[in-house]
């Protein structure tokens, strides 16, 4: 083989392939610019200034939710309040109340007729029921979200105060997030055809109000805390009592804590 032919080994095809790789790398730099400063919990802009649209500063809060199962009377006031506050379509729920009947042999009978919105009727179960209770459920606003992570268009996101929210304008309704949520907290809105979920009433929080469900709970079974507030009662209860999370084995790090909650609840 002569030197000449060896030089010609670098064919036009090789050249194009190398060029394409180079262009790809360049493209990554161009497009990657958007990714470089991603950090879910900062509201520092690119130029370093802190952005807060309201007097309310989202970086100064981190909300926690506490549910005392022993206090829930299953009245469904929270479900009705949520529906009115957030204009939730009928037969869809951003929060709901489940009823559990557990037999002596550990069989679980769970029901939630219409999410508890219309209250509960007595239920006859042909078994030796040894414990029974109501469990309110809502989005756990996970720290390690399975849902927001996989949104292909950046419509699901985690706000600076740790709320998992949906940008309706960007959402393409692919429902990946609906399937990814291990707690079933999301649904596709029948009218807008976008993902919809509990916002923890962030429009109320930003104005110094509490959520509709917490405010309308007659027994204090639902409570809202703020781990960045000084001397917060809910934070104290979480720190000092026997609380549990739902599906902790998934390491989603939920922000909803349950007290007096039997292990049948998942």
């Amino acid at each position, binding site marked *: 083989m002569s030197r000449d032919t060896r030089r010609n080994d670098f064919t036009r095809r090789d050249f194009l392939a190398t060029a394409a790789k180079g262009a790809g790398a360049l493209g990554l730099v161009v497009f990657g610019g958007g990714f470089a400063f991603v950090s879910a919990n900062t509201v520092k802009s690119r130029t370093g200034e802190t952005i807060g649209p309201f007097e309310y500063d989202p970086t100064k809060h981190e909300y926690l939710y506490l549910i005392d199962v022993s206090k829930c009377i299953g009245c469904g006031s929270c479900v009705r309040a949520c529906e009115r506050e957030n204009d939730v379509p009928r037969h869809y729920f951003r929060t709901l109340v489940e009823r559990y009947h557990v037999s002596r042999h550990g069989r679980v009978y769970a029901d939630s007729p219409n999410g508890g919105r219309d209250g509960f009727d007595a239920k006859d179960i042909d078994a030796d029921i040894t414990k029974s209770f109501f469990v309110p459920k809502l989005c756990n606003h996970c720290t390690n979200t399975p849902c927001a992570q996989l949104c292909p268009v950046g419509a699901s996101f985690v706000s600076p105060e740790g709320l998992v929210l949906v940008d309706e304008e960007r959402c393409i309704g692919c429902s990946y997030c609906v399937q990814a949520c291990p707690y079933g907290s999301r649904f596709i809105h029948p009218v807008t055809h976008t993902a919809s979920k509990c916002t923890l009433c962030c429009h109320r929080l930003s104005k110094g109000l509490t959520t*509709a469900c917490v405010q309308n709970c007659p027994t204090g079974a639902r409570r809202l805390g703020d781990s960045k507030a000084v001397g917060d009662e809910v934070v104290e209860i979480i720190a000092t009592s026997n609380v549990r999370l739902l599906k902790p084995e998934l390491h989603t790090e939920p922000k909803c804590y349950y007290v007096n909650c039997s292990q049948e609840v998942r």
Partner: protein
Amino acid sequence: MEHTKHIWRISLLLLLVLIGAVLGRHFLIPDSFGKAGFYRYDALVELMGKEPVHGAPDSCADCHDEKALAKAAGLHRSVQCEVCHDVLSSHIRDDDKYADMAINRSYKLCAYCHQKLVARPAAMVQVDIAEHLELAPGDAIPAEACLECHDSENIHAP
């Protein structure tokens, strides 16, 4: 020097791709995208800016102070007015009454909280409604059954 033509061509192609990428990025990515994370920051502003529908916990007291005071002294102190009636924004606009507030007189309202159920904590005051009304078995519950004996005063401050 016969290959310079290829180099120019490919450079031009690359330049076009680059311009396309920059333009595409400019038009496809919304303004506030990436301000605080991999999302449109304006979406957060929009969500946070929505008007509340329920009022603050004591918002009815501004105009119905008698009722509010009576309620605060009774056992329904922990029950929000809006649970039994309707939301503040259905009644008040710009600090003035613009529509009637709903009044729920159905026994179902009371039943949400007071119907006897096994799952309900024993500490909650419960009645077996059929028994409490002394209905014959199979009788339907009259729609406004509870108001016959539990009048407005009693309901607001039992």
